[in-house]
């Protein structure tokens, strides 16, 4: 039975894991070279076993083998092949197997990649990574085995939640997981480096690559989730400060801070302890993210029905890992050797420190907003939720100085720089930003929280990052990422301020006036597709000069019976026209929502630019 093959492969991987943990733990006592070719082949076998079990699960999904419980619960014969495959990780068991797969493959790559580094460091990193792998294997095998059988074998599965049957969401989990799980290598390596006393510039330039890889995948993963939410959830927003979104943002903030710290460590040999703390924190956040999403204790629009008891295991495991890492951090911390401490107040080191402080502030805001409701419920049974105003109020005032420091920071030199370097050009750019923002804010009558200074500083950063492309600094990846970030903030601002929306209930043939436009609901067409029926509404948005035709869909899936809406979006470089409609009750009324979202496409492009900077930085060896 193919199904059993996957199951047994996991057991073999578990045995290998135990063996490696025992073998490597011996090197705590004696410092002899234990990382023999033997262990390397064991790791290869382990990765192979996990790959086999993952392929087995995909095979079970593709062939609709309903003797497998996971397949039965999440698949259906009538589903298109693409979603049969993506259904593999669209559920709890499969997604954990994907976690494990990435864990083992990353370890394998790490062992190859770190050949020139000290053996002791590699051994300890291996030790910690295997502990994580071991924990996840236990979790998978004993609480959420993807290869559980059902008997008698059902003839048909219950289907994949139709809202997940979408191309962006099919590749969103693997990409996000590559980012999440990449942080595990950073975690293990940080602990390994403390014990083997090798936190130095060469460690930094080695771990930098892993930080960059995780960071790039995490950024793109968040982007995909955001794009999906934009067109599938029908609210026309790209970020809701929803707990499930927040748990992916938190590791990102932490990883961004770590990225800057590691660059500094590589150049200057400072911030060792801080880099370690950030490494541990990032992975803890990724783990707790998985825990919070999987346990179902988060009250979120994204929450899926699931089994809360599973969360307890991840939580315990997380505590064990955090405890071990804190113990190691304090126990071995004294061995951290300081290479150079001579740093002056006006220097790039300070700029990185400022960046980190802001990142930590944003992180704590998001963290508190996400977990406070859980605590309150546990403590006095009060049920609350925290909405966007909380985040806006706390983040926006701090974003303004952050943007300013981001504009000047990258141009400050390492070690020591002069205070009076601010030249006329900067002041000129700043003046222009003030004038443009002032005119803009007055013209559109914007009256949001601190909108004028926010505009001034984001424009300032925008202009400065553009100017920097012509500067002497040769770090092109940094320029692209920073430019991308300034573009992101600016497009979010413009998008938020200039967006217009109208929602109403319409029948076929109705017309509604909105601003200078008329929304016409012309007709509905019904089409039968492979595993759903679709109602295509034809709408016309007519204004003085032209008319735009939009065709949103309502899909009625048969297995499981669910209705989803597909927004129709017409994107230009200036604005998105977004239209979505829903069935309310079968009496002829449809809930129609029309939105004009300016500069939407630039939000996506800017995140791609930010990630592109990271990719370019990976390519070059020593800059």
């Amino acid at each position, binding site marked *: 039975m193919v199904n059993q093959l996957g199951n047994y492969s996991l057991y073999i991987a578990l045995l290998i894991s135990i063996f490696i943990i025992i073998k490597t733990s011996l090197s705590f006592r004696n410092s002899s070279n234990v990382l023999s070719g033997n262990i390397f082949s064991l790791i290869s076998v382990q990765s192979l076993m996990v790959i086999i079990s993952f392929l087995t699960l995909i095979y079970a999904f593709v062939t609709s083998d309903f003797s497998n419980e996971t397949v039965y619960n999440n698949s259906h014969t009538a589903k298109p092949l693409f979603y049969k495959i993506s259904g593999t990780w669209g559920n709890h068991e499969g997604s954990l197997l994907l976690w494990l797969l990435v864990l083992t493959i990353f370890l394998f790559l790490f062992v190859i990649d770190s050949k020139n580094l000290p053996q002791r460091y590699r051994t300890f990193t291996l030790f910690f990574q295997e502990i994580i792998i071991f924990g996840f294997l236990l979790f998978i095998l004993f609480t959420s085995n993807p290869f559980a059988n059902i008997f008698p074998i059902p003839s048909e599965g219950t289907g994949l*939640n139709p*809202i*997940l049957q979408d191309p962006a969401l099919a590749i969103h989990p693997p990409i996000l997981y590559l980012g999440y799980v990449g942080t595990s290598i950073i975690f293990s390596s940080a602990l390994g480096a403390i014990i083997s006393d090798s936190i130095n510039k060469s460690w930094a330039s080695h771990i930098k690559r892993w930080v960059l890889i995780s960071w790039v995948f995490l950024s793109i993963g968040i982007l995909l989730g955001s794009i999906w939410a934009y067109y599938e*959830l*029908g*609210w026309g927003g790209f970020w809701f400060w929803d707990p499930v979104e927040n748990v992916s943002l938190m590791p990102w903030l932490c990883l961004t801070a770590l990225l800057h710290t590691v660059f500094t460590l590589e150049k200057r040999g400072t911030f060792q302890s801080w880099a370690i703390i950030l490494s541990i924190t990032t992975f803890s956040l990724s783990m707790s993210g998985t825990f919070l999403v999987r346990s*179902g*204790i988060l*009250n979120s*629009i*994204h*929450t*899926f*029905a699931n089994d809360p008891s599973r969360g307890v295991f991840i939580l315990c495991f997380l505590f064990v890992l955090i405890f071990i890492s804190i113990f190691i951090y304090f126990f071995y911390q004294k061995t951290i050797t300081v290479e150079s401490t001579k740093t002056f107040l006006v220097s790039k080191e300070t700029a990185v420190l400022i960046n980190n*402080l802001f990142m930590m*502030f944003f992180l*704590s*805001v998001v963290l*508190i907003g996400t977990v*406070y409701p859980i605590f309150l419920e546990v403590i006095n049974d*009060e*049920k*609350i*939720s*925290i*909405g966007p*105003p*909380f985040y806006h*109020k*706390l983040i926006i005032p701090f974003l303004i100085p952050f943007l300013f420091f981001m504009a000047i920071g990258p141009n400050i030199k390492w070690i020591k720089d002069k205070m009076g370097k601010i030249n006329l050009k900067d002041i000129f750019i700043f003046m222009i930003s003030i004038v443009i923002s002032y005119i803009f804010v007055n013209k559109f009558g914007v009256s949001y929280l601190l909108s004028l200074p926010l505009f001034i500083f984001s424009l300032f950063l925008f202009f400065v990052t553009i100017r920097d492309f012509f500067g002497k600094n040769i770090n092109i990846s940094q320029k692209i990422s920073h430019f991308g970030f300034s573009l992101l903030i600016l497009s979010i601002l413009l998008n938020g301020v200039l967006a217009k929306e109208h*929602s*109403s*209930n*319409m029948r076929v043939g*109705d017309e*509604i006036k909105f601003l200078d436009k008329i929304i016409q609901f012309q007709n509905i067409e019904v089409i039968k597709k492979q595993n759903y029926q679709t109602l295509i509404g034809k709408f016309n948005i007519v204004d003085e000069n032209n008319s735009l035709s939009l065709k949103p869909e*309502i899909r009625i899936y048969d297995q*499981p*019976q*669910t*209705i*989803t*809406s597909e927004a129709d979006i017409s994107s230009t470089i200036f604005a998105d026209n977004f239209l*979505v409609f*829903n*069935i*309310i*009750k079968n*009496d002829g*009324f449809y*809930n129609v*929502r029309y939105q004009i979202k300016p500069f939407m496409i630039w939000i996506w492009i800017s995140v791609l630019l930010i990630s592109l900077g990271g990719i370019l930085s990976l390519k070059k060896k020593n800059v």
Partner: protein
Amino acid sequence: MYGKKVKLRAVFILSIFVSLILVSFLIIKSLEENVVYFKSPTEIKVLPEVTKKKIRVGGMVKKNSININQSGVNFVITDFKNELIVNYKGAIPNLFEEEKGVVAEGFLQDRNYFKAVKILAKHDENYMPPEVAESLKEN
């Protein structure tokens, strides 16, 4: 008296300390203002006073209670003990149906009438918001 280094370090630690206090103060203050409480229709009935703050209400959408017109919908949220009339203008998620769980966010007008500004969507047809499940269980 003290060396320059010690002074600098003291200033550094002090400034971190001050900023920590400032940050916690800001966060706590902002929390107080922006927390949205969840109530069931029964809890609303016994509220000492009708607050002007935004709240969330959850329960089941009563059978045959959805009433649609061009500008919005009216429906009744029930926890099988007490009911609340809801008026809503805006986007309606697909999983909004009679005899299904619902969470609406908005403002209480009085103990029987609620003006919603948002109805929360769910991903999963089997999913019941935890608060709704619990408040239904309590009754």
